[in-house]
């Protein structure tokens, strides 16, 4: 691990700005990790990621796969004895990592989110087929789930054309704001 981060612009500071809560609130009890449904797939437990940020080990936090594996289920946030919203913290770590163009480990998750948001940007609504198509092209995971598609199509659950929002300028405005 690296030495203490002495930058003024620490990850802790950015997260506090984004979430209006201080990482110092966490007293490292581990209750969040204990109840996390995806804990077993994570290298670092959620409380460890918080710990990294508390101590200024920002690189460790930003490169950890944990925030990307987090399913945003809010189990941790609803049980934290210190009222620390861990899910929101994870959102913020991801946001900063993207902003800093960190080479994240969980590329597929990142690509999935990108594909999903692209559909919203284009259509104002999520378009599953378009999203899956884009995702597959991005990840080259061409054969995953193909067995389900014919049935989905048959059942009318996968439409090949997007449902579009008519008035899309507001959506554009929101997206423009984050560029």
């Amino acid at each position, binding site marked *: 691990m690296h030495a203490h981060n002495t930058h003024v612009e620490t990850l802790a500071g950015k997260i506090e700005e984004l979430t209006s809560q201080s990482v110092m609130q966490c*007293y*490292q*009890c*581990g*209750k*969040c*990790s*204990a*109840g*996390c449904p995806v*804990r*077993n797939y994570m290298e*670092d*437990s959620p*409380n*460890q990621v918080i710990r990294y940020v508390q101590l200024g080990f920002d690189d460790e936090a930003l490169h950890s796969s944990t925030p990307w594996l987090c399913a945003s289920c809010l*189990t941790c946030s609803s*049980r*934290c*004895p*210190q*009222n620390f919203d861990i899910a929101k913290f994870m959102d913020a770590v991801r946001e900063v990592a993207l902003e800093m163009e960190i080479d994240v480990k969980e590329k597929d998750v990142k690509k999935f989110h990108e594909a999903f948001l692209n559909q919203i940007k284009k259509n104002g609504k999520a378009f599953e087929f378009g999203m899956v198509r884009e995702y597959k092209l991005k990840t080259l995971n061409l054969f995953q789930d193909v067995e389900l598609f014919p049935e989905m199509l048959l059942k009318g659950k996968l439409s090949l054309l997007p449902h579009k929002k008519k008035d899309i300028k507001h959506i554009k405005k929101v997206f423009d704001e984050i560029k």
Partner: protein
Amino acid sequence: MRIGVFVCQCGENIGRTVDCPAVAEAAGRFPGVAYSVEYKYMCSDPGQNLIKNMIKEKNLDAIVVGSCSPHMHEKTFRKAALDAGVNPFLCEIANLREHCSWVHEDIVDATKKAIDLVRIAVEKVKKNTPLTPIRVPVTKRSLVIGGGISGIQAALDIANAGFECVLVEKEPSIGGHMSQLSETFPTLDCSQCILTPRMVEVYQHPKIKLLTYSEVENVEGFIGNFKVTIRKKARSIDESKCTGCGLCVQKCPIKKKAYNEFEENLAHRPAVYVPFPQAVPNIPVIDRTVCTYYQTGKCQMCVKVCGREAIFFEQQDEMITEEVGSIVVATGYKLYSIDKKPEESEIKGYGEYGYGKYKDVIDGLQFERIASASGPTSGEILRPSDNKVPKKIVFIQCVGSRDESKGFSYCSKICCMYTAKHAMLYKHKVHDGEAYVFYMDIRAGGKGYDEFVRRAIEEDHVKYIRGRVSRIYEEDGKYIVRGEDTIAGKPITIDADLVVLATAMIAQPNAVKLAQTIGMSYDKYGFYNEAHPKLRPVEVSTAGVFLAGACQSPKDIPESVAMASAAASKSLVLFGSDFLEREPTVAKVNESVCAGCFYCQKVCAYNAIEKKEIKDRKGNLVKVIAYVNSGLCQGFGTCNAVCPSKSVELIGFNDEQIYAEINAL
């Protein structure tokens, strides 16, 4: 008037943010100030001598000390003034520390404010008049509220010193929580064995009047002279006739309708019952809510078997008044429990642990009863759901405490210790069993305490896991406990047979009501506030009222007993003299202008204002005016504020004095 101003630096405490020489210098130029000086530690002996010498040398007749809060050293400096021949009430304090140097950072601003504060005090002291303290007689008896170990100890200490004592306990027996405990840390001696002799001693003590099943309804008066009204609830048994033979209890046909509170609801009790075998007094009570006679008018089995004709269905609550000079409050605590959650409380409960849902997720006191030789399982460790010996047991610490979100943010202080004790007791009784403790920190700061915890770990092989548990659910008769070992950084799941939650000690549900009856302050959790956290830990801000035990904050037995003895000795200090000196800040009526409207009487909470008839020389009634009984007057001055003709003044805080302060602002 020749006023002296003494500015204290308090070492660095004031000096760091207030330019003391500048303050002294500015004060020297105030009209009426004959001398001013600054010094490093005014309360030290040389500091006090400085004051005394200067009073004499400079012929001062009033002083102002710019120092710490008057709550800290007003007495000290008044005494110094008195020693030098100046009336102590011609001494005023300007609070330059708590209200200035400690709360401000900018030297210039703070110094400016300090000068203002001194000026205000100087203007006030100009309007002060010499006063003499009021002497009131002391009633040398004490009231102790609460009959747990703290109340028992306090009552015995006072009584053994030769003074009478009234002990009021709301339950049918004294003993409190200690009577429920199995063995006690850190020595593992049997709780009942050390407690019972004390309970008996209380019962037999000629100087102790024991009122069980009783509650304090009202408190009037003040230090040295309290008048207390106590409600003695109807037991439905004539105490003077009952011999405690227990026949009624045995024969009462109602067996299962009521939970046994003493056994923490792990067993049932009859309608007529004694809380536990060693109860003091050993006299039953009838629970009218379940007794068949009270519900339907039938049964009366107890009447039939009682040879002493002691059953007394028509008995009524009785009001008793007692006059005492001091009050010791020792009302103890409650254990955080979701079943008995206090009304309107913010407690959200622990649904994720199934607390209140699963029979085998219990709290600390329930475990005490299970481990107790006199408990429902006769001391065998059996779990409530199926009476089987649990082979894997999990203890979870800090439940309800150190939890902003679901409970209370304070540390309950004793649960680390009682959990170690529980784990140890378990291991001693179930040799092949496995015990796990989930903890966040181990707080075992007492004599022999950490050694005790280490023994649990090293000798009894209790496995301590650092982390909070997130979830417990039942699966095939096991309780799946999901935690995280934050030291190893690994999730951990245990299939336990029994789970014990170390829940927090919390304030008694009626604590606030009692505080209001007596006039004590309490913290946001309902624990009573001591007058000073370090220097007056057993007093409250209401004079003559003392605190003992867990009603002040979570405490174990040794601390409770120490505090009880301290509270008792504070009472004894009071009883050491026949008279008591009181501040002369009382109201006084100017008879020549009083119009006799008696607005003042309506607002006086202490009934201190009486009617006085003024007669002429022939004995004809001229007018009826107000008169203040200075023995009763507590000096809060509402009479002064409401009197339309300003005929009543509060000495020490009269209009003139306060205007002087306002003018100096």
